[in-house]
């Protein structure tokens, strides 16, 4: 990929991972409550 495309894909990947983590946060709160 050319550099601008590389940058865009990097930002998109970072955004997706952070979004996925945020979503998992909801799961985590429930999980901790359940196991606690």
């Amino acid at each position, binding site marked *: 990929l050319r550099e601008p495309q590389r940058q865009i894909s990097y930002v998109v990947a*970072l955004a*997706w*991972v952070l979004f996925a*983590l945020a979503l*998992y946060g909801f*799961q985590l709160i429930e*999980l901790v409550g*359940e*196991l606690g």
Partner: protein
Amino acid sequence: VALAAVTVVAWFGLGSLLLAALKSGDTRLDALNRIGAGAIAFALLTFGAGWAGVLHPIVYLAVFASAAAVGVALGVPFLKRARFPRIRTWRRWQLAVLALLGVYVALAVLSTCAPISSPDALLYHAADPALFENAGRIVEVPWNSSSYEPFTVEILVLDGFFLWDAVQGAFAPLLLALVALAAVIGFAERLAGRSAALLAGAIFFAQPFMLWESTSVFIEPGLACAVALSAWNLARFVRYSERNALELAGLFAGGAAGMKYLGLIAVLAIASVGVIVAWQRLNVRAALAFSLPAVAVALPWYVKNAVLTGNPFYPHIFGGLNAYASAELDRAMKSFGHGHGLQDFVLLPVRLLADAEPFDGGEFVSPIFLAFAPVAFLAARDRRTVAAVWAGGLLYVTAWFATTQQARFLVPLMPALAVLAAVGALGLAQRGRLGRVVTAGAVGVSLVVGLGASIIYAAQFAPVTVGAESREAFLRQKVSLYDGIEWLNRNLDPDDKVATTAWALLYLDVPYTTFGTMGDLLPPEAGAMATRSFVRSHGVSHVAVLAGDSERLRQVGYLDARLVARVRVKSIRSRTRGDIAFHQEMLIWAVRRGE
């Protein structure tokens, strides 16, 4: 544990004999191919002997010992040639991941050594092998439609019964999970080096979901093993055009189809990926090289069903159950997940990450799969292959979504997703400081949270495994209606036969039948004539049902039966949390013979 290790050697020995003409160019894959093929061969041999009515522990032990001897003879030179990694040169995080995998293997062994307490295992994954062992042959189990699924893993559990006992049988799925782990690590290393290999292994195995899966006598670890070996062999065909590799990919695809109907969907996904990535080399010979071994390995299970029921896929596709059992099965399959509409399909990734409990244990699946597997598009050099693997995965998920949305049934996808996620995570970490921080944080948090949940899960088995808790006390605490089962074992004779609705059939030592669990026996709405005919044809001497089961109590009313016991029992909702669903009485009736 030692016998489980010898089992792997025996699988390796038998597999080596069978694959003498089908060697792989990759030594590590070759070793795993032999182990996997040996396991499938043991299952098919036991299956054949079972239907021929010649199942005998002595015969099995003779074959097992011979195969183990061959395994030792061929395995020692194999090990001498093998190059072991020099872990002194490894980086700290790599050592930490290796140690984590070691902890998970120890937790898995600890949990598997406890008496079997998983409900599905008590109902059929281990209960049916116990029946086969007692009968000296494989018998039809009409009360549970799940027993018509291809049964390769259950037959390996039966082999464990012959070797020692039920717990030995429970090691078979764990061994298959460990072979799958070795395949994930080996394949990822060939593809992207040691870091990717360790990370892929941890993503696949170091999660509470896989710990539960591999220690509960479930079938999916076997499916993951077969799929991983098939995929690795397919990759070798694509890269090096090894004809052997294509045949081996077919053999393990067939192995998956011989473990559970779900394996058929996995075969479809594997074949689709193969067609996409190697379409220029596709011809009739290649198609036959893949499909002939696949069909040969899977066919016996489908022929058996065709002979017994007239439907090779019984009770699916062409049906065959009575209306009640069919509706019960359909309701059970549809009861998982958030819904079956287009909107639900689109929201699937979000729900699998944020609200996965309705997928039956989905909250214990590692989030790393979904967070990083898509990132492989960014990192991998060969995006076309990544796209092909995703296409196969999407096909599988679509079928999963349309049939039954249980997180367990996503396990066959996990080897491929783990490799993609590892490649994606490392690619993102190498792109910049922020990428490194986010990746290390996300993977670290997920692994730590997963380890915490896994320790809580495994801790419940520690006292009984180390001998600090008695087997009886453990079972009373973990197995639904166990007090009722114990009463029946104490008070009924070997020539009695009980009809029950209890699930813990593995621990029922007296002859039994059930009224049907999604099986074709006595529907709850059946009237007096059908009930009396059921009792007569099955030679039932006792009936054991819960006091709250009004429909079965009505049917007992049609019989000349007297109440002989009321046993207070409890139903377990969660073994790990110690949650009790309800306390009730189990009512036990003696039926006048000749009824």
